[in-house]
Structure formats: C-alpha cells, structure tokens
C-alpha cells in the first residue's frame, strides 16, 4: 500500500520557551524532527551540557558491554538534568573502576589463555623423541646429514634436532637458521613434557580465575543493572533534548522547529504547546511512515535490507510476505528440509535475543511453504522416505514445471507494473510519464500473445509501439527494453533450477549412501554418517541459495518495475 500521508509542520517559539517546547514534543512523541537550516547554533550552555552528558553516556556504554544487558525501564517524567548528572557521576565513581578492573583482567586472562593454547599446540605436534630433552633446538624440514644434528619425525612433520654442544651447537644453529624455520620454543625453560604440565596447570588456574571474575561480574549485573538501565535511559533522553537544537534555525529571539507528523496528531500539538505558533508547510522530502503490524512486522526486514520506500511511494512489504515464502518453498521443496527450517525457527525463538527473533516468523512461513511444495513434488529428503507427489515429479516433468515457474514470474511481473500504474495515479504523475513508465510491459505482453495466435500485423505493431515508448523514456538504450523484460521473465526459471538442484543433490546423497551400506561390518555406520553429512550439506547450501534467490527475485526483477526507494524512516522524537 501507499505509505501514509504526513503533515510538514513548522513551530515558531521564543527562545525563552525553547526548552519547555522541546520537553513537550519529547513527551508527545509524535513528531519526526528534521534539520531546519544549516545555520550554526551558538555554542551555548545547552551544548556544553550535552558534552558532559555525552561523556557520561560513553562510560555507560562501557558498562553495557562489561555487564550483561537488561531491558530498559520506561520512564514517565525526566528528572532534572543536574540531578541526573550528579546521580550518574556518583554511580560511576562508585562502580566503574571495579567493573573496569574485573572486565579488563578477564579479557587479559582470556588473551593469555589463547596464547597458552597456541603454545600447547606447538608442543603437541613435536616428536616423542624430543619430549624429555631440556631446552631443545628444533628446525622444521629436511637437511643434509651433519654431526650434531639428528633428524626426528612426528606424525605431521620432519624436524632437525641440534644435539651438539658448545661452540659447535651455536655454529650449527646459525647454519640451520639460514635454511630452515626454527620452532619457537622461547617459552620452554625445561623439558617439553615438564613445559606441557606447567602450561596445563597455568591454564587451569587461569580458567578458575576467569570463572571467578565472571561470577563477580554477573553479581554486579544483578546488583547494578536496574539503576544503570534507568540512568542510561534518562541520560540518553536528556542528550536527545540537549542536542536537538542543532537541527533548529534560530536568531537572538526566536527558534524555528521543523518536522513531520501524522495529520491526526496536529491538533494535539496545538493544544499541548500553546507557546508555539504552528503552521503547515509543503511536504518536501518527508520521511516515510511504515506500517509495523501483522505480517508487515516480520517481512519489513526484507524490504528494509534493500531500502526504505520514499514518501508517497508504494510499500511492497505486503507482496513480499506472500511471494517470498512462495518462492522459497518452490526452490527448497522438500518435506524433510521444510521440517528442519521449522526446527531452526524454533531454536531461534527459544533464544533470548530479540534482534534475531524477527526472523522466526519468516522462517516459519517459509518452512511451511517448503513442506507444502515437498508434498506437491513428493520429496522427503530426496526419496529417502517414499512420498507420492500430489502435483508433479520435478525430474520427470521438468518442462511442465519450467512453464509453471514462468507463469508465476509473469504473475509477479504483472503485479509489479499494475502497482506502478496505481502508484503513478495516486502520485498524480503527468499522463505521458505514467504511460511510458508503466505501459510498455503490458503492451509487449499483448503483442506477444497476438503473435502466438498468428495476428502478426497487430502483434508487431504493438511491439514497435512498446519499443517507441521505451526509447522515449530511456533514450536509444530503450531499444533493448523488450529483451530486458524477456531476460527478467526468464530469470524466474531459477525457481525450477534451484528446486531441481535441491532434489538432485538429495537423490545423489541417498544413492552414494546406499552404496556405502554394502561395505562389510561398518556399512551401517558409514551409511548413516554419509546421510547425515550429505543432507546437512544440501540443506545448508540450498537454504542459503533459496534465501538469497527469493530476495533477489524481489530486489532485482520485481522492485525494478515499481519500487521508489531513497526514503527516510519516520522516527518520532520521543522517550525510549
């Protein structure tokens, strides 16, 4: 649907009332404030206070990393700025140093633990023959035989061990150093065996200390989080208020605040902010308010990853919520893989991170669609579990499925140009622009249908008309427009191609696994292991492929027909 209308407003307030008006706008939370002008605001007290708050916020961000995050509390009224600053400073003075010491020590220990693991892996690779020699000097590689140099072998490498003593030892070491890479054993002061024991002991001690630090940090999280979250939220709100004047145009007496709001909230503004004079301006580069309810909420991610529709343009999220799972299911089309997609969605849902939870709905719908197409194509981990196709067997009726893919593509593309026509009409675009931007594709389709039914004269005339419109729109490059549409249409053949790839690899995995079953004694184990490995591989590769290609069919083929991006999302100025 077309993105909702917004009112462009300007509020003129006296500088004495500025703070109060900002506070009221903040609590109303209905206006998206934009830059009013490029005029620099004097470096007045509000900006100095903003710097103080900004410094405090930095320290709180550090605490957020060091302590486990908790969801912020909501606040109705902001406490006064100075009280907040004092409170935050006292809180930081009391706790920041303790947290910092524990956090830095933990990070340092983890780094050293990694170093020890690396040193242990060097020692583990060394040959048994050198493990009881004190401070051995070893080089990796082959070398001609020498007195005082012994060749020793591990399972991985060939080494040269210096066995000479005194000046000969130094001479041989220098000679080998010029030709071979010396094993770095600078951390070994005794024998390899003793060094390993020491490293393992040290590792255990460090792991214990890290656990102790983590326990202390967890205790601090439980103790400090409510206060920290409260102060962080309040500081952020003050910071937003203090830095907002950067966007205003001001002189010595008055300030102009500019922004956008929904038409039904304009009266609230005039009622609640009597100090300001409000007037409506012409919408110009207005932000876009996107619907965040129902299916839109989950599939919004797919649109947002590409771009935000510009103000007054069509928001394609509704279409995506229908076609994305449809394309995904067509391409993966397997009952077993669909169940695995649902399982993945369930696993993500059980995680606590809200950022990843937005994908669970997309995965669930896509998983169900995969199962439905799997039933239609009779595929259950290939043919591992026999299933009768309810619609077609992809390998036997590929040409039929190719036609089905292209028909689906045609429907998708026709929705695209129809939407573009609707968008042009609602935007009251000039008639000729509307015709050149939206009608070439349906005219080409009509021409192609007439040619198919041997009405050559009319068919060719329509194709020439469509090309003329494209040339008018795009210049001489427009002559390629017809083949461009044809290419876009054929691109939907990937639905079949990827579907066959998923089924084909699954069948190949099953065939190879069944061959392994005939191996004596270990046949059963190799059969099971290969089935798990093969289907996991196929699942991973084709889920990735289906995800990308379902998005691509929208971003490249579909959006090209109507999408008007480059918008800024409507973000009202309000408390977090």
């Amino acid at each position, binding site marked *: 649907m077309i993105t909702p209308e917004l009112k462009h407003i300007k509020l003129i307030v006296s500088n004495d009332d500025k703070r109060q008006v900002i506070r009221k706008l903040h609590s109303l939370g209905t206006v998206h404030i934009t830059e009013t002008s490029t005029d620099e605001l004097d470096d007045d007290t509000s900006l100095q206070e903003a710097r103080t708050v900004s410094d405090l916020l930095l320290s709180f961000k550090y605490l957020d990393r060091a302590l486990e995050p908790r969801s912020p509390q909501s606040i109705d009224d902001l406490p006064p700025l100075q009280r907040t600053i004092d409170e935050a400073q006292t809180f930081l003075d009391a706790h920041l140093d303790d947290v910092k010491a524990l956090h830095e020590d933990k990070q340092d220990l983890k780094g050293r633990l990694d170093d020890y693991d690396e040193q242990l892996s060097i020692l583990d690779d060394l040959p048994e023959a050198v493990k009881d020699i004190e401070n051995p000097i070893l080089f990796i590689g082959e070398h001609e035989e020498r007195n005082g140099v012994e060749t020793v072998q591990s399972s991985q490498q060939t080494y040269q061990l210096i066995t000479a003593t005194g000046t000969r030892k130094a001479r041989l070491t220098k000679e080998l150093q010029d030709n071979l890479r010396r094993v770095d054993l600078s951390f070994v002061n005794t024998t390899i065996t003793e060094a390993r024991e020491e490293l393992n002991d040290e590792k255990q001690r460090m792991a214990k200390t890290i656990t102790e630090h983590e326990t202390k940090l967890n205790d601090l999280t439980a103790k400090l989080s409510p206060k920290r979250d409260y102060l962080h939220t309040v500081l952020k709100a003050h910071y937003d208020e203090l830095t907002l004047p950067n966007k205003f145009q001001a002189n010595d007496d008055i300030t102009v605040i500019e922004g956008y709001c929904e038409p039904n909230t304009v009266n609230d503004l005039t009622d609640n902010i009597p100090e300001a004079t409000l007037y409506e301006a012409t919408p110009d580069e207005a932000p876009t308010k996107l619907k965040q309810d129902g299916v839109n909420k989950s599939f919004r991610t797919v649109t947002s990853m590409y771009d935000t529709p510009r103000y007054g343009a069509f928001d394609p999220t509704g279409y995506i919520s229908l076609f994305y799972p449809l394309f995904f299911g067509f391409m993966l089309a397997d009952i077993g893989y669909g169940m695995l997609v649902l399982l993945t969605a369930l696993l993500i849902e059980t995680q606590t991170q809200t950022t990843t939870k937005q994908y669970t709905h997309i995965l669930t719908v896509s998983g169900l669609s995969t199962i439905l197409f799997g039933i239609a194509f009779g595929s259950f981990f290939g043919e591992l579990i026999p299933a009768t196709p309810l619609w077609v067997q992809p390998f036997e009726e590929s040409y039929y499925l190719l036609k089905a893919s292209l028909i689906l593509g045609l429907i998708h593309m026709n929705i695209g140009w129809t939407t573009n026509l609707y968008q042009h009409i609602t935007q009251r675009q000039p008639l000729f622009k509307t015709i050149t931007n939206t009608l070439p594709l349906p005219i080409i389709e009509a021409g192609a249908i007439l040619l198919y039914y041997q009405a050559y004269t009319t068919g060719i005339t329509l194709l020439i008309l469509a090309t003329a419109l494209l040339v008018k729109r795009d210049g001489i490059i427009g002559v390629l427009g017809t083949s461009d549409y044809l290419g876009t249409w054929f691109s939907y053949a*990937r639905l079949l191609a990827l579907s066959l790839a998923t089924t084909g690899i699954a069948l190949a995995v099953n065939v190879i696994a069944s061959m392994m079953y005939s191996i004596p004694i270990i046949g059963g184990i190799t059969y099971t292991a290969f089935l798990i490995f093969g289907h996991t591989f196929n699942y991973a590769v084709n889920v990735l492929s289906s995800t990308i290609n379902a998005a*691509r069919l929208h971003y*490249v083929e579909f959006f090209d027909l109507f999408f008007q991006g480059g918008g800024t999302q409507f973000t009202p100025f309000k408390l977090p």
Partner: protein
Amino acid sequence: MAEITTGLIAIGAGIAIGFSALGSGIGQGIASSAAAGATAEDESLLAKMLVFAALPETQVIFGFVIAIILLFVFGG
C-alpha cells in the same frame, strides 16, 4: 539418424549449461570478491552485496532454460 539427433541435442544441452555456468562462475567470483570487500567496509551493505554476488547466476539460468527446451521440446 534419430540416435544421432538425440546425441546432438544432448551435446547442445551440455554446451548450453556448461559454458553459461563457466561464465557465471567467473562473474560470480569477481562480483563476490568485490562484495566481500564492500561488506568488510560497511556491514549494513550485506544484503545488497549478497544480491550482487547472486546477480551473475542469471546467465546460467538462461543456459538452463535453453537446455530444458532442447531436451524436452526438441528431444521429445
């Protein structure tokens, strides 16, 4: 004669898929390395870059369409 025709159709389908896959593979390699570089600079570009990396696949899809038409329309 019919066997020769079937053989030639199969070879044609193989060439259609083989060369278009080769071209797509080279194109995808170039696009993906550039996309990986861009994503390393700015993580928010990940989605667009994944699509860029998948763009050259279209060529192999065209080859695939030709192969299917050869096998099922001309090959009976």
